[in-house]
């Protein structure tokens, strides 16, 4: 059989895969990209983009309810949400991004094969029997929601099947089968995003970023949201001040948070939608790992130890290609940023104070609270802050945690300071615009300098 030959084959068209493809195009590598579903992956279709869209919708809904204090009179009796319409707009945005992504890849002379790919020896095959050869292979097959683990016997009294897609296939009301555990009535994040109605009651298992984001969205849109977590607090591994702030913001939105839950004893009434946001696991193509092969690299969420962040997946995809062409640039991965979207944005980069202390760094931190920031007051954002962490000995910035509107954009500046070990006094001296949120980065740096 005639095999097509490429410099690079990429399996998976999510952020990791398409970023690798664009990078390969820069170096004039011939490149084929396999995607079994839709270009854009989890991020575009079941992750980042839909959740940020829904966060925007929630924010707009809240603004409509509070706009009278700004003199905008609306007919309150008519305020409601047509969620089918909401979801239609979401699909339009997602489709447009996916369509443009395809056009852009093709414009970069990347061949796209819409098929599930697997590896046999060093050949890549698709289910339809086509075969491809490539000098290098990047696996960017991403991840999927993890099954509920076997130590959890969640008892759902009556599964409200009407709203759930896969529930009809789930075998029993309560089931603990170590192979593939599914609990009837418990849906995953993919299924929640498919719902075309706002659940009256939403119970969320888990307290990580995804749980927090969905809790805020649906509580703001009117669901009665209850979170169950095993631990003492939400957002394990996040800075303590961030945890406090996010917890308060969720409570303000009406979310009930139950800590120290024993999931083996958890009993759920059954008149609610139950979402498991307990974790994700990597997906790998069939045939991967059967032969050790140094021409194969795994990037993004498909990696065992992935950060489960789209922008890190993208950076890994690009770095893998650069490594292949081995240009002179040494590719040290910088510190990475991570964000949470609730009533405001949360952004974190580098080390938290606790993490720094744990690895033996003499850390100094300061928290600048933006009570006098004009933009915060104009938007009635409430308590917002910038926290900075520095190494007392090197006098360099090693971490930052932000809780304010636009934190997700502001944090990149702080990542630049950390990655390039920029002198804090120099970073403080940058003339930032007024009135802005980022002008308080100056104030935060000044506060830090005083402590150093």
């Amino acid at each position: 059989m005639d095999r097509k030959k490429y410099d690079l084959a990429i399996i998976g068209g999510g952020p990791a895969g398409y970023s690798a493809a664009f990078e390969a195009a820069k170096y004039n590598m011939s490149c084929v990209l396999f995607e079994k579903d839709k270009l854009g992956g989890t991020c575009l279709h079941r992750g980042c983009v839909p959740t940020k869209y829904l966060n925007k919708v929630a924010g707009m809904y809240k603004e409509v309810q509070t706009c009278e204090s700004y003199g905008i009179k609306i007919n309150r009796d008519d305020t409601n949400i047509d969620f089918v319409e909401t979801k239609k707009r979401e699909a339009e945005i997602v489709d447009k991004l996916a369509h443009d992504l395809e056009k852009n890849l093709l414009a970069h002379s990347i061949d796209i094969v819409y098929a599930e790919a697997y590896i046999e020896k060093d050949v890549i095959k698709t289910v339809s029997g086509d075969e491809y050869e490539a000098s290098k292979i990047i696996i960017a097959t991403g991840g999927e929601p993890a099954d509920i683990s076997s130590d959890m016997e969640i008892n759902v009294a009556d599964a409200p099947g009407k709203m759930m897609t896969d529930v009809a296939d789930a075998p029993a009301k309560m089931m603990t089968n170590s192979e593939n555990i599914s609990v009837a009535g418990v849906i995953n994040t993919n299924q929640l995003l498919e719902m075309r109605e706002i659940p009256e009651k939403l119970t969320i298992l888990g307290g990580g970023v995804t749980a927090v984001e969905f809790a805020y969205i649906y509580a703001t849109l009117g669901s009665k949201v209850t979170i169950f977590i095993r631990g003492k607090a939400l957002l394990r591994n996040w800075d303590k001040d961030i945890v406090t702030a996010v917890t308060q913001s969720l409570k303000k939105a009406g979310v009930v948070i139950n800590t120290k839950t024993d999931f083996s004893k958890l009993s759920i009434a059954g008149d609610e939608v139950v979402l498991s946001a307990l974790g994700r696991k990597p997906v790998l193509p069939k045939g991967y790992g059967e032969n050790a092969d140094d021409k194969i690299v795994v990037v993004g969420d498909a990696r065992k130890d992935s950060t489960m962040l789209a922008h890190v997946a993208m950076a890994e995809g690009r770095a893998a290609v650069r490594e292949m062409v081995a240009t002179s640039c040494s590719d040290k991965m910088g510190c990475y940023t991570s964000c949470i979207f609730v009533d405001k944005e949360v952004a974190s980069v580098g080390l938290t104070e606790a993490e720094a202390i744990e690895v033996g760094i003499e850390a100094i931190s300061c928290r600048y609270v933006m009570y006098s920031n004009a933009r915060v007051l104009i938007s009635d954002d409430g308590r917002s802050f910038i926290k900075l962490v520095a190494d007392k000995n090197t006098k360099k910035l090693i971490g930052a945690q932000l809780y304010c509107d636009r934190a997700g954009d502001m944090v990149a500046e702080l990542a630049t300071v950390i990655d390039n070990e920029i002198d804090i006094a120099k970073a403080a001296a940058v003339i930032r615009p007024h009135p802005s949120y980022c002008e308080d980065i100056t104030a935060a740096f000044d506060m830090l300098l005083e402590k150093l």
Partner: protein
Amino acid sequence: MRFSKKHIWVKEDGDVVMIGLSEYAISELGGVMFVNLPDEDDEIRLGEAFGDVESVKTVSDLISPVSGKVIEVNEEVVDSPEEMAGDVDSWMLKVKVSDQEDLMTEEEYTAYLQSL
């Protein structure tokens, strides 16, 4: 009520003590916007920060005049910090004390404030 030089008041309440922020400190800050307090069961240490208060002006550490284990946190103060006053109702923590610094009486504290 007895006072520390760091403007924390202490009042015995059975076998635990209540601690709070003095009226002087609250007015010096120009009002409290937010309070960060430890969790129940946390250990706090004499001379170290057990939390902080935010004002429009700044963030100020709360320095503990006692060592011990936190028995209870006043959620009302956490939820409405702007209503915090220097009185007993505005207690922040109840602590089971293992160690305590020498504290001032009300008159001594007033004299101390005048010396500042």
